[in-house]
């Protein structure tokens, strides 16, 4: 277990930001921390980073208190920026040193990472001379420069163009392959689906959805199948309704009917099936449904 959060609470004056929240992050996974704006994600992350102190509950990072584990954790905050007047390499070395890395090691690692994100030629330039996309890449690299076990990324894709989104996505997958644990907070559900193993959805400071992405999707899947075929016969046993859906058909099933039975029925009628699948549900729909259902 890399991170354990137990019964965590945090309030600002009269506002409850985090309300008895519990979850765990396992070693080596990409964990999605989701929720609408103001749900308490950033507060939770700040407590895990020892920037804020909780009002109640406990947090362990790598089996230690957040303060003790700091140097093993990399953090890309949502509100981020770098020293504008400092040189690129200088910035990375300073940030690595603050995480306890020796200056020499820090230089080597920083140069290697800059190479990796195609910024090596800019190492001696000032940060303010970099384009926006370059600065975003540099910020990402800054959270990695001390070779952390755990990486917390708060909205890493915000404001990125598609090319840079791909670059960052690629980097995250690479870290995942290296066995790092990544906690990803983002509003881009397609990226969550592409990257995350497990997720936690927070709303109004409470955990409302937690577990393996696949299981959650299965749980929220409508009782339906998606069939692509040139045409469908008018009455299929067990099918309540059939709607065209983007070049295919979306068949809602009666409660006691399984997708297998429908497939059999279709084959029995000799339908030319090109694609047959249990109807998927985009994470975005689940997100909207869960949040608006509990959002009052």
């Amino acid at each position, binding site marked *: 277990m890399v991170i354990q959060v137990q019964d965590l609470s945090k309030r600002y*004056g009269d506002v409850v930001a985090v309300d008895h929240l519990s979850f765990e992050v396992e070693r080596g996974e990409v964990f999605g921390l989701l929720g609408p704006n103001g749900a308490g994600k950033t507060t939770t992350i700040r407590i895990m980073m*020892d920037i804020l*102190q909780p009002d109640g509950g406990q947090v362990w990072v790598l089996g230690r208190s957040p303060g003790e584990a700091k140097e093993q954790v990399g953090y890309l*905050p949502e509100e981020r920026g*770098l020293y504008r007047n400092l040189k690129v390499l200088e910035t990375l070395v*300073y940030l690595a*040193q*603050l995480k306890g890395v020796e200056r020499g090691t820090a230089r080597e690692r920083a140069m290697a990472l800059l190479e990796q994100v195609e910024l090596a030629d800019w190492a001696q330039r000032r940060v303010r001379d970099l384009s926006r996309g370059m600065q975003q890449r540099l910020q990402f690299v800054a959270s990695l420069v001390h070779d952390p076990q755990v990486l917390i990324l708060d909205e890493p894709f915000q404001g990125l163009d598609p090319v840079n989104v791909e670059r960052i996505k690629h980097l995250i997958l690479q870290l995942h392959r290296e066995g790092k644990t990544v906690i990803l907070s983002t509003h881009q559900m397609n990226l969550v689906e592409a990257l995350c193993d497990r997720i936690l959805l927070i709303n109004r400071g409470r955990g409302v959805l937690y577990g393996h992405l696949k299981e959650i999707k299965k749980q929220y899947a409508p009782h339906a199948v998606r069939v692509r075929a040139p045409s469908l016969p008018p009455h299929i046993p067990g099918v309540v309704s059939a709607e065209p859906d983007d070049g295919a058909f979306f068949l809602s099933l009666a409660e006691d009917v399984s997708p297998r039975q429908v497939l059999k029925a279709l084959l029995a009628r000799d339908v030319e099936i090109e694609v047959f699948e249990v109807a998927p549900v985009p994470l975005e729909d689940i997100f909207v449904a869960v949040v608006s259902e509990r959002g009052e």
Partner: protein
Amino acid sequence: MNWRKVWIVARHEYLTNIRKPGFIIMTALVPALGLIALLVGAFLAPQARQIGESLASFFDTAGKRVGLVDHSGRFTPVLPEYQETLVVYEDEAAAEAAVRADEVQIVLVVAEDYMQTGRVTVLTRGSGFDAAVVEDSPSIRSFFIDHLLAGEVDPELRERVADPVELEVRMLTSGGESRGMSGGWGFVFSFLVPYFLALFLVMTIFTSSGYLLQGVAEEKESRVVEIIVSSVRPMELMAGKVLGLGALGLTQVLVWIGSVWGFSGGAVLMLAVSSAAMIPARVFVLAAVYYVLGFLLYALLMAGVGALGATMRESQQLAGLFSLFAMAPYMLSSFLFANPNMGLARALSYFPLTAPTMMMVRLPLADVPWIDVVVSMLVLVASIPAALWLGGKLFQMGLLIYGKRPTLREVWVILRGK
């Protein structure tokens, strides 16, 4: 507190700020002014010498002579010791012609009713300055006194009347010892030099704590701060900044002292040291202690305040309040010169925000009661942990509130709670 991280922050702050154009200009200003003064001095020296000579040489045989028209009859014949330097004319017309012909620089015309009125007219082609010099010149005073008293009193008395007071000041201190100073000017120097020294030190306190404020506001504005506080505790960050910038301020003071030494060949410094030598060593030791304590107090508070503003400008406005406190002794300086131990001055010495500067100004001016030293030190030493706590809290809170300044209520809630 992780001192390794404190050291990394301190080193970083020192190295990045020492390269700033603002710091370089400010630090170079003193040597530059010294250089300008040196050049101007070298350029103007011949002329300056001329002016000086003509002023000093009224009765100097080498210089131009002074004419005399005596209608009263008290000053003729001229006493032997003045005959060489003085030309006597029969009437004003002759004297005027002599002035126009540049034979003499000025002519003193003593009126007929001089004994009743003391009226003396000065004829000159120069400015009114000449006349003013005549009035104040000790040699001319002696000329009149010598002639008025000639034959009536003995020479020793005559001399004493011409220069009745040879001033020496002895300050009586509570300890019973007294410190001597020769002449009124020595006395004035003895507090002017430390006064300006204190002013300079106050300036370095403000430049370096100003950098602290600026740095914090900048980190906040550029949003780099959240990355920093995810690696370093706010207290460590603050301590590192205070130490790094304190070293920067000290560097500035040392450069100034060094440059003054270099340019003047030590002359100015010798002047400062010699006039300072009239002040007991304890004043210097105490001033150094107040300097360090004052810097710590102000820097810690500046860090807190710097973190509160949403922008650099806002932070600087908030910090202006502190400058007002620190400058209080300078606003009161005319009263302080008259009575350094007045009630208000003592009261301000007990108040932490005014204590460092007030005591630094008061110490060279007078014999400050020991109780004031003890109380002000205790107050400062006690308020530094308080400033650390308060500054740290404000710093910690302010750092993560972006885009707006927290309201007083929010500040209060944070200070009370966690």
